[in-house]
């Protein structure tokens, strides 16, 4: 079954960070990322009752479709496709290995959709290292995934932008964190925090 608390927390984190995300997108993009993510988060929160009755896979698909039909911009198709793909690929309940596999499928779907590759200062630069940590497995996984997500988002600041709006900025994007990457880190962070606080001390159940 879908974990409503995790969904509520992850979406709420995005809503709470709307100004930060706006500022990041203003620095290297067109300034709408915060509002886009908030619109998507609110659309998901409006469906919490419906989601509560769904399986993890159904819920991921519902959330993906909600993103796709309410967000627009780059984030709509990107987060939508990611969630829909995860919904297709994940067993319920998921294992870390299964999550790694599903995330790999998600990254491939995004690459097909948006023609971006890892290293081009998009949220792929968070998803890819996180996928690798999951695939590797091991102890303290939730904490390590969380740290990896935030560190990877921060690391986008050093990258030249070559996809998305920031691509028009070229070298001038240097020094600024990619807003979509920050969003992904916030979502992953919220999920990992939730899992950790709940599953202590079972550190393996990411």
């Amino acid at each position, binding site marked *: 079954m879908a974990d409503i608390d995790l969904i509520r927390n992850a979406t709420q984190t995005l809503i709470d960070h709307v100004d930060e995300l*706006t500022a990041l997108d*203003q620095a*290297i*993009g*067109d*300034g*709408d990322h*915060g*509002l*886009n993510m908030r*619109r998507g988060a609110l659309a998901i929160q409006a469906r919490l009752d419906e989601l509560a009755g769904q399986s993890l896979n159904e819920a991921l698909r519902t959330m993906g479709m909600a993103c*796709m*039909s*309410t*967000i*627009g*911009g*780059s*984030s*709509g*198709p*990107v987060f939508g496709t990611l969630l829909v793909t995860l919904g297709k690929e994940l067993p319920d309940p998921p294992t870390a290995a299964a999550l790694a596999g599903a995330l790999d499928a998600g990254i491939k779907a995004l690459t097909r*959709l*948006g*023609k*971006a590759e890892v290293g*081009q200062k998009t949220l792929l630069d968070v998803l890819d290292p996180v996928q690798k940590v999951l695939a590797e497995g091991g102890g303290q996984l939730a904490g390590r995934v969380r740290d990896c997500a935030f560190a990877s988002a921060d690391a986008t600041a050093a990258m*030249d932008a*070559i*996809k*998305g*709006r920031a*691509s*028009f*900025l*070229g070298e*001038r994007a240097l020094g600024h964190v990619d807003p979509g990457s920050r969003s992904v880190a916030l979502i992953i962070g919220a999920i990992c925090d939730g899992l950790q606080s709940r599953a202590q001390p079972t550190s393996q159940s990411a």
Partner: protein
Amino acid sequence: MKKLINDVESLLSESLDGFAAAHADIVTLGEGGQFVRRRSPKPGKVALISGGGSGHEPLHTGFVGHGMLDAACPGQVFTSPTPDQMLAAAQAVDTGAGVLFIVKNYSGDMMNFQMAAEMIDCDNATVIVNDDVAVENSTYTTGRRGVAGTLIVEKIVGAAAERGDGLAALKALGDSVNKATASMGVALTSCTVPAAGKPTFQIGADEMEMGVGIHGEPGRRRVRLASADDIAAELSGAILKDLSLKPGQEVLLLVNGFGGTPLMELYLMVNAVHKILDGHRLKIARCLTGSYVTSLEMAGCSITVSAMDAATLALWDAPVHTAALHWGM
């Protein structure tokens, strides 16, 4: 932020309601404001659908009507519309001859329109507009942005659709007009996305952003404010370099305001560009001046040059009856 609004959340829908009321003779607003469509679709005609983030008015909603678009899907300010909107629009205006999407080359628009195109069950094709020469194309970029040249593509392809051209021919025409069209802009001030509440970028009192995008995205470089003649020289220099036209070539000149620049200055820019194009022995066959592809209240302008031949000139001159462009009928 100083704007004539009630509530940032309802700005778009209130504005669309006003637009639909003001132009009820030309357009109808789709369910939930998902799209604006031509009031009387023409049976057997390929349906032209465009759309994109709002804040560029009159683009695209102002170009819906006879001889131009059949529908436009308005997204939130500076945010691509969703595939749902495009699907709803296609359903409303397709009359069986297929749908041509006209899409500005931004990753958001590209992805959303692409998803719509994959889901749609009628014949369809897509023309991608990428006329902005400000940022050099390279293997590492999404490519050039689609800016004011979009108007020219929509007008010319719209006229061809109105006379009954088929989907493949329209797609080819759109691609070739796009290829013959180049633009570049300059910003003197920033715009303010209503929901963000503060200017998209900070710019000094004596600075300008050369090559700015229509979302206030950074351009080539931030430089000292220059004279209109110098600005015209840099913008048209980049454009002419890209198009490499032969002397004697007929062109359409579009001097486009970004929203906060008075007509008086735009006409002064027309004068400045005129002198330059004359110097290159290019013939300005048509000239359009005004704020057509805007960035909210940003001050600045873009120059667009589009190489024309007798066929495209005739299509440009063909009757059009939309909220923002209106001639010949």
